[in-house]
């Protein structure tokens, strides 16, 4: 009787190739981690310098004039809050309405036609939206309705940002709605529910986590949006703290952009440069929190049904 040893150790060349492939993918993943870390580090250093060296009384003042040593952080913060909330007022009804129509009411043929249009809208660069807001929305809509509004206003910018994030909200919540199993819709129809009742009482509640996630994604996009506010917001180089959306204002992102691009070609004094890092850091924390919360919701959405 002969005994042959069976080798189950496999081809060593294939093993090596497998290891190389694994390392390549590991490296790509590592780079994104490194870049994130580098961003945080670059922000933290200067931001710390700013917070340590700044005259604390100038942190709360009449407005944000970084080149004159007035660093009222509440000014860009207020602008960001006003603009992103108003943008949500525009984008949530439009985006959700479109999502519900596409997922629950549209016939397949209509859907095949509308969905790509929505995606094209999502791909429009924000500078184009900014231009549209400045040359069309502001004179034809905002100024017509509100006499007191100037050509530059936070409201015009808000509507622009709202249009910008509508496709995002629509597409993410449509995914959430479509992910609701057909069996649930059938159950509701089988009990004599009308289509609108089925949407309101079954499909929408079942998709609520995903829908909330879409809103938070939209909100963090609105907070991070720079160009529209930069073009239409008005008070980019600096401005008085303002909550009235009909007045010009600045957001955190637009304020950073204006110092970074040096639109007035002045180096500024003292901590002007550092102040931008402080803003950037605040913004980073802001969006990080929102994204984490949104991530939670998305995960919960997966577990629902």
């Amino acid at each position, binding site marked *: 009787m002969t005994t042959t040893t069976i080798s189950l150790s496999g081809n060593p060349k294939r093993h090596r190739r497998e290891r190389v492939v694994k390392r390549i993918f590991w490296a790509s993943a590592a780079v994104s981690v490194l870049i994130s870390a580098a961003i945080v580090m670059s922000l933290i250093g200067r931001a710390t310098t700013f917070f340590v060296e700044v005259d604390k009384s100038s942190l709360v003042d009449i407005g944000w004039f970084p080149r004159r040593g007035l660093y009222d952080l509440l000014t860009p913060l207020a602008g960001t809050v006003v603009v992103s909330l108003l943008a949500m007022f525009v984008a949530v009804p439009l985006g959700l309405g479109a999502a519900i129509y596409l997922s629950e009411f549209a016939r397949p043929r209509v859907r095949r036609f509308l969905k790509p249009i929505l995606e094209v809208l999502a791909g429009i660069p924000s500078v184009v939206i900014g231009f549209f807001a400045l040359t069309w929305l502001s004179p034809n809509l905002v100024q017509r309705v509100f006499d007191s509004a100037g050509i530059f206003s936070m409201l015009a910018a808000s509507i622009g940002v709202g249009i910008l994030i509508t496709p995002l909200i629509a597409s993410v919540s449509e995914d959430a709605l479509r992910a609701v199993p057909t069996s*649930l819709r059938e*159950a*509701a*129809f*089988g*009990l004599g529910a009308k289509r609108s*009742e089925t949407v309101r009482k079954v499909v929408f509640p*079942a998709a609520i986590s995903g829908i909330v996630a879409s809103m938070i994604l939209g909100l963090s996009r609105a907070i991070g949006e720079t160009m529209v506010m930069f073009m239409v917001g008005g008070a980019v180089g600096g401005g008085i703290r303002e909550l009235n959306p009909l007045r010009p204002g600045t957001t955190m992102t637009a304020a950073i952009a204006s110092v970074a691009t040096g639109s007035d070609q002045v180096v500024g004094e003292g901590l002007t440069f550092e102040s931008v890092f402080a803003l950037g850091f605040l913004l980073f924390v802001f969006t990080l929190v929102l994204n984490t919360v949104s991530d939670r919701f998305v995960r919960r959405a997966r577990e*629902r*049904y």
Partner: protein
Amino acid sequence: MTNAGDLRPPSTLPLDRQATVQSSPKVSTADTLATVNAPASSISPSNTDEVVLDITDLNVYYGDFHAVADVSLPIRRNQITALIGPSGCGKSTVLRCCNRMNDLIEIARVEGSVKYHGVDLYDQDVDPVEVRRRVGMVFQKPNPFPKSIYENVAFGPKIGGFSGNLDDLVQESLTKAALWDEVKNKLSESAFALSGGQQQRLCIARAIATSPDVLLMDEPCSALDPVATFRIEELMRDLKEEYSIVIVTHNMQQAARVSDRTAFFTVDTDRSQRTGVLVEFDDTGTIFTKPTEQRTEDYITGRFG
């Protein structure tokens, strides 16, 4: 081509005609549908010859595909009618014509008539929502809503504008579905906390909460283990005292165990398409012991399908 209508025992033919005529003085509006629907108790339960749903010359098309051809089938009060046959023979399609669930499939087209107490469900002015409140449905996979046990049962009555005591109705429905004792202490818990068999009984409770008089069951036990299947079958025997039940099943033993009458469908290979046809419809005992058609016998004895 076999005409299914001719396969009915001659003795039953005049009777169901008579019953149809009795309950249908040529009316067809949705309003009349409401008045025709008498509570089960007002009609003697012993009168099992009354035809509740009269399917006549039913043809269903999905686009160009002829799914079901020339089906005629009377469904009698307080009986369990089983639809059996190989996959793709159209039994679920026929079932879904009985509460207009096929309306949800855009390409589906129905010809012929399905008379419910004499009113054709496919008349122009019949509201499918109204139909589904009277003809309840239980699906293949348990599909409770992602809501509490209580809310699941209360869903149908709530959208139907039920004005009585909802708590009592929920208890009554759960009791009829033989689930009350198991869930009475956890009505506010999620329906997903229940086992598959319990979920299916919950779906039955949910369906009977709208007080339909016909229950359509589309392979209600195919996702359940034998013990849960046994309980559902027991439940069906109880339920037929009050409801008329149509069940689609792949399980011939199940049809033999629970049903009073059995309709055997098959795929007609003589046609150019795989069209479902009704081969034979008779008392369950007759179908399983001395079927008239060779094709039925072949299927029953396991020679194909």
